[in-house]
């Protein structure tokens, strides 16, 4: 199984140009967030009947990417895929930050976010969800640190200036062993810890993601959400998006060594697996919903398939989110190319946004009582939602900010083992 590697060499200006673009978009995002904080929720196009929109969608999208990446770093315990681990954890961390950021700006009173811990309510899924985030972030950070501590320490010694200070800070004063045997012992210890955290992390990550799904699934008022399959769909879609993200990231920014094509392939195959299961679950939901013929439930499907934004489903969810990646990963002419597998990953990562859009908004578009949509004629009582300019600006901008943060972390942190290379390199 020899995969052809397209040599992807970018011109020299590409990197600064990339940073200029992403930096500019991040700035737009920061400005949009400031506008939202100063003028309040009136800058959104949300309405009372559709109180959750773009920001909530991107929030669950990011949490999905985070949990998917985290589980990729653990579930794929096979030695071959260990190289993906750090990258996956880093993306899990930044995606989690992204999710937090989006749900924070979505609050009507962002300055009160800490009430969720001081006034914590055990009956609320949302409160439990935030509680799980605490454990989850600790799990990610611990795992990341134990994976990187040797490299960080050696970087702290070898680099100069602010970089040295930075590495000393993030290595928390850990000293790197000098000899190969000492390193071996230290590495074995790190790996033991990492594996333990990884195993503890699995239920935490599942709780985080299942919890996100449960936020919707417990709402009996909305027949479309009120299904036990929802948390499962959330989990499987998260795994699909995580695997797809890893396939994309590793294909374009992975380390080009002998394992490289196999790793990309492996990630793409995981994405294929979860995308297929996801399709199955969605089909089950749709068929059962159609057969049940509860009017409010049927209306949601009508909105998704033929509503005001049908391309979200047909183009986003079905084509970019499912058909294109599944074809690219399984067709024999493209599955041998790392480039196309990376493209498949990117396509799925982008297309899955449409999945979340369709899971959240159509359920709100359908009035809970017959005639409620014609009972009060005000723009803020409309059953139609399309994000406002500031919602778009903040969404694009904050995603850029997260991408920027990830890019900087990717460049600064030892995403691929350095010390490991030094010591184990001689043995080979």
């Amino acid at each position, binding site marked *: 199984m020899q995969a052809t590697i397209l040599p992807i060499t970018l011109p020299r200006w590409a990197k600064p140009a990339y940073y200029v673009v992403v930096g500019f978009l991040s700035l737009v995002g920061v400005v949009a967030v400031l506008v939202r904080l100063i003028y*309040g929720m009136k800058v959104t196009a949300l309405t009372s009947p559709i109180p959750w929109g773009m920001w909530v969608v991107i929030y669950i999208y990011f949490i999905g990417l985070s949990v998917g990446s985290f589980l990729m770093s653990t579930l794929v315990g096979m030695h071959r895929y260990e190289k993906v681990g750090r990258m996956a954890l880093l993306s899990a961390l930044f995606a989690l930050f992204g999710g937090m950021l989006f749900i924070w700006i979505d609050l009507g009173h962002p300055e009160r976010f800490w009430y969720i811990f001081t006034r914590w309510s055990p009956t609320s899924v949302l409160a439990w969800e935030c509680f799980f985030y605490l454990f989850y972030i600790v799990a990610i950070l611990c795992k990341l640190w134990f994976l990187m501590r040797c490299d960080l320490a050696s970087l702290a010694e070898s680099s100069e200036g602010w970089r040295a200070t930075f590495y000393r800070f993030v290595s928390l004063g850990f000293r790197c062993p000098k000899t190969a045997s000492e390193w071996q012992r230290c590495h074995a210890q790190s790996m033991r810890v990492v594996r333990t955290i990884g195993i503890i992390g699995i239920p935490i990550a599942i709780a985080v993601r299942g919890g996100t799904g449960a936020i919707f699934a417990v709402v*009996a008022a909305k027949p479309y959400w009120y299904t036990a399959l929802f948390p499962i769909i959330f989990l499987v879609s998260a795994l699909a998006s995580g695997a797809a993200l890893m396939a994309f990231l590793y294909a374009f920014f992975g380390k080009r060594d002998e394992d490289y094509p196999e790793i990309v392939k492996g990630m793409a195959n995981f994405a294929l697996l979860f995308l297929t299961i996801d399709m199955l679950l969605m089909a089950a939901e749709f068929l059962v919903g159609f057969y049940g013929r509860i009017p409010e439930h049927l209306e949601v499907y009508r909105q998704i398939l033929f509503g005001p934004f049908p391309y979200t489903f047909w183009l986003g969810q079905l084509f970019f989110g499912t058909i294109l990646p599944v074809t690219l990963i399984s067709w024999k002419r493209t599955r041998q190319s790392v480039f196309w597998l990376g493209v498949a990953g990117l396509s799925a990562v982008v297309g899955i946004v449409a999945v979340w859009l369709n899971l959240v908004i159509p359920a709100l578009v359908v*009035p809970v009582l017959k005639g*409620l949509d014609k009972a009060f004629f005000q723009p*803020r009582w409309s059953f139609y939602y399309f994000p406002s300019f500031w919602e778009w600006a903040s969404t694009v901008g904050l995603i850029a900010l997260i991408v920027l943060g990830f890019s900087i972390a990717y460049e600064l942190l030892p995403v691929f083992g350095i010390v490991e290379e030094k010591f184990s390199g001689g043995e080979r």
Partner: protein
Amino acid sequence: MVKEKNESVEQQVGRRDILAKIASAVFASLVAPAVLSETAQAATEQQPTQQTPKLPELPPPKPDEDPLIRMMRDLQRALKKPLEKRRWVMVIDLRKCVGCKACTVACIVENKLPPSVVYRPVLEEEIGKYPRVTLRFLPRPCLQCDNPPCTPVCPVKATWKRPDGIVVIDYEACIGCRYCITACPYGARSFDFGDYYTEGTPEIAPVEKAPSFEYHRTWERKGNESPIGNARKCHFCLHLIERGLLPQCVTTCIGRATYFGDANDPESLVSELIDKPNAFRLKEDLGTEPKVYYLI
């Protein structure tokens, strides 16, 4: 406060002064309990003081008096009972509703609601085909469910059912996540986005900036301060009923189609009405046990 004043009085020399001071002290002692009970009530919204403010005086009962007077009498009787013994219900006679929407408007004015918030819309349903058409109107306040789906989902315990059955929101605790809005099967919760009806005109109408008195408090509309950025809902005009007045929608109804009172009191008008077989409640199958009854 009064004692301090009296002490300072003794230090004064002039008799006129003394008399003036005593008069003001007496006045203060009369006003202070009212002021204090106001603030105490605001501080403990969950358990308002048993002591009720002065109730309006009513004419002696007559056989065929206006139902509003009868309901006010029922209300005063209920207010003499402890909070947990009251069970506020609303009854809406759909045969009497003409769809004038005066209740919707009166509620907006009473609670100074912005365009994104409506506590009591009137739903319309067209029955039949032209030329044989009739309209059915269904006013929908908050149904004050006995088993409310909106309260357990709140992550910060900012909304709960009071002992007398009214579902309330603590505006100062609500973080504005809007989970409760999605959880309500009746669409009875709205979000205050902070807009104004007269936005975009040369001046925002002063009436829109006027404070609301929900939950026995004064809520000024400014900046992003609560209730802006909060979930909001009908509370049966709690601030009125605890002063012996009927909810604004009940008082305004031109056809006397809306009734209000204490269902725990067998003598009350609402108790008579909800026991009839023509009473129904919305979406009873969800097990929410609404406290708004419709008569057909």
